[in-house]
């Protein structure tokens, strides 16, 4: 039975460190006092009324004494939370169907690998609109590759914070970031160890994007309008992509070894692409050609592997097994050196183009909640296989998986 015991012991290693004696004594004492007070009150009532009464004596208890109420979404506990499977954002006025229970507008909630969902109340809710209307006020989160840390913009702190979910350790960025800098589409990348956090946004505006060393309390400026998709473990080399209006790659090196922002190399690509995060190994990036037209937003397209520094196409394959005719596809976390996660979001306007947004009274309806399916896409063969994980979300921008994000 050794392997099973080993696995169970491994799981048990994730249990929190606790110190419960004094809290248990406090709860007991409070219950005892409350119980005694109720008995006294009941006795008085019986004497005064001269009647026989049935009295229910219920011990009191704070919220902490109680078990989680089924169906209710709890706020993220200060510590002792297991690794995350994903985070997603909720808008509560879907044009069809229902919003999830306990919905909070623009708010993020996180889901652990064990299936427990929590409100991430610490994070700024997004106020940018859906339905084709963009506006300033995005809020994103980023999850470390192991799911154990999450980064978000904390309105109380006026800047970004990184939270270790198990220990509850909270690290605050050394510089304030005004909300107005967050843009209408922001992008965050959190390094595997949670030490480095990259923040960029669109539109570029004049406000700085930045790479933050949360441990040492240092900041380096980054170019705006780019999406960070890869960062070396030492935080010194960053890969970024731009998908609009044209596709570009940029590699920044020596980010912390020079007084300014280091060296950079930018490559313009001849076609338009949707990018994966930087592949394991740090030299390759996968991308799907973006052949969307005004009349057709779901056009099957080949998958390429390109050199992340030079943009040179290393391999080009046809994709099989992905519903590209009916879904938007987004490339996300790498599952192995050859397989990347592909998320497929249903797009009912594939053949008709996106409908124009009618002018009407606020609040505008939000997108419906739809099931996003995940696939493992082999970049060598182009073959996709369906994964068990599905997500009920409104849009791909509002769904964050562990690890570096892709772009589009």
């Amino acid at each position, binding site marked *: 039975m050794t*392997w099973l015991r080993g696995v169970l012991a491994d*799981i048990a290693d*994730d249990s*929190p460190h606790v110190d419960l004696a004094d809290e248990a004594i406090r709860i007991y004492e409070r219950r005892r006092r409350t119980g005694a007070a109720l008995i006294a009150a009941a006795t008085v009532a019986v004497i005064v009324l001269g009647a026989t009464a049935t009295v229910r004596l219920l011990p009191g208890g704070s919220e*902490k004494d109680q078990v989680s109420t089924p169906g209710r979404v709890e706020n993220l506990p200060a510590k002792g939370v297991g690794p995350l499977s994903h985070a997603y954002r909720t808008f509560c006025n879907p044009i069809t169907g229902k919003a999830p229970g306990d919905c909070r507008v623009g708010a993020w909630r996180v*889901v652990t*690998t064990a299936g427990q969902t929590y409100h991430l109340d610490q994070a700024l809710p997004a106020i940018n609109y859906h339905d084709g209307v963009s506006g300033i006020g995005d809020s994103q989160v980023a999850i470390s590759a192991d799911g154990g840390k999450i980064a978000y913009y904390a309105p109380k702190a006026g800047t970004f914070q990184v939270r270790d979910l198990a220990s509850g350790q909270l690290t605050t960025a050394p510089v304030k970031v005004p909300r107005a800098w967050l843009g209408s589409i922001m992008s965050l990348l959190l390094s595997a160890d949670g030490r480095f956090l990259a923040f960029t946004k669109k539109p570029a505006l004049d406000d700085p994007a930045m790479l933050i060393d949360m441990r040492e309390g240092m900041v380096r400026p980054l170019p705006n309008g780019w999406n960070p998709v890869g960062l070396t473990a030492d935080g010194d080399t960053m890969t970024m992509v731009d998908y609009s209006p044209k596709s570009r790659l940029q590699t920044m090196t020596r980010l912390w070894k020079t007084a300014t922002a280091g060296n950079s190399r930018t490559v313009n690509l001849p076609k338009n692409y949707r990018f994966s995060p930087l592949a394991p190994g740090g030299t390759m990036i996968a991308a799907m050609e973006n052949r969307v037209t005004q009349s057709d937003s779901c056009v099957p397209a080949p998958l390429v592997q390109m050199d992340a520094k030079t943009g040179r196409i290393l391999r080009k394959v046809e994709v099989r097994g992905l519903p590209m005719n009916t879904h938007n596809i987004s490339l996300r976390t790498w599952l192995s050196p050859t397989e990347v996660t592909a998320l497929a979001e249903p797009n009912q306007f594939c053949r008709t183009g996106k409908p124009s947004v009618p002018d009407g009274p606020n609040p505008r309806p939000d997108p419906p909640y739809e099931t996003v399916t995940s696939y493992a896409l082999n970049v060598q063969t182009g073959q996709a296989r369906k994964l068990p994980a599905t997500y009920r979300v409104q849009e791909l921008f509002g769904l964050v998986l562990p690890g570096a994000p892709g772009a589009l």
Partner: protein
Amino acid sequence: MNRNDSFREFVATHQQSLIRTAYLLTGDAHLAEDLLQSVLAKLVGRWPKVARLEHPEAYARKALLNQHISWRRRRTASELPSAAPPEHAYWTEDRAVVRIVMRQALMRLAPRQRAVIILRFYEDRTERETADLLGCSLGTVKSQAHHALARLRELAPELAPKFEELDQLAIEEARR
């Protein structure tokens, strides 16, 4: 040493072991803490009697198991949008993959079956000890363990080779 000091000493000694079991039972750190906290809060009131028992720790463990099983109606997953986490990143070691798969499978067992698996295979309790702790018969423990292992095998087909090793060991154990 007053009664609270004695209780504090007991908790300091055993809480980490108990929270590990609670975590395996609930699969959630917050719930595990709630579970153990509620058990300890009840234990304080009975401490003068419990402290005189030969194995107060076994009493606490039994209370933990009973409390967990009594939570079964209240403890429903509020949301399970994902059947599984996105498959594991390339740097994840095999051991971590097994751990995640097993944790998910474990959480899908009925509370009593999960308790049997944890007592038998994590705490290395005998069938008799397991039956005593759960307050059920030896036969119930045997059948629950059998059904729980079969269910785990269904829920975690990725671990089939590991379960085969387990079968072999069980056969050898039975022969001895």
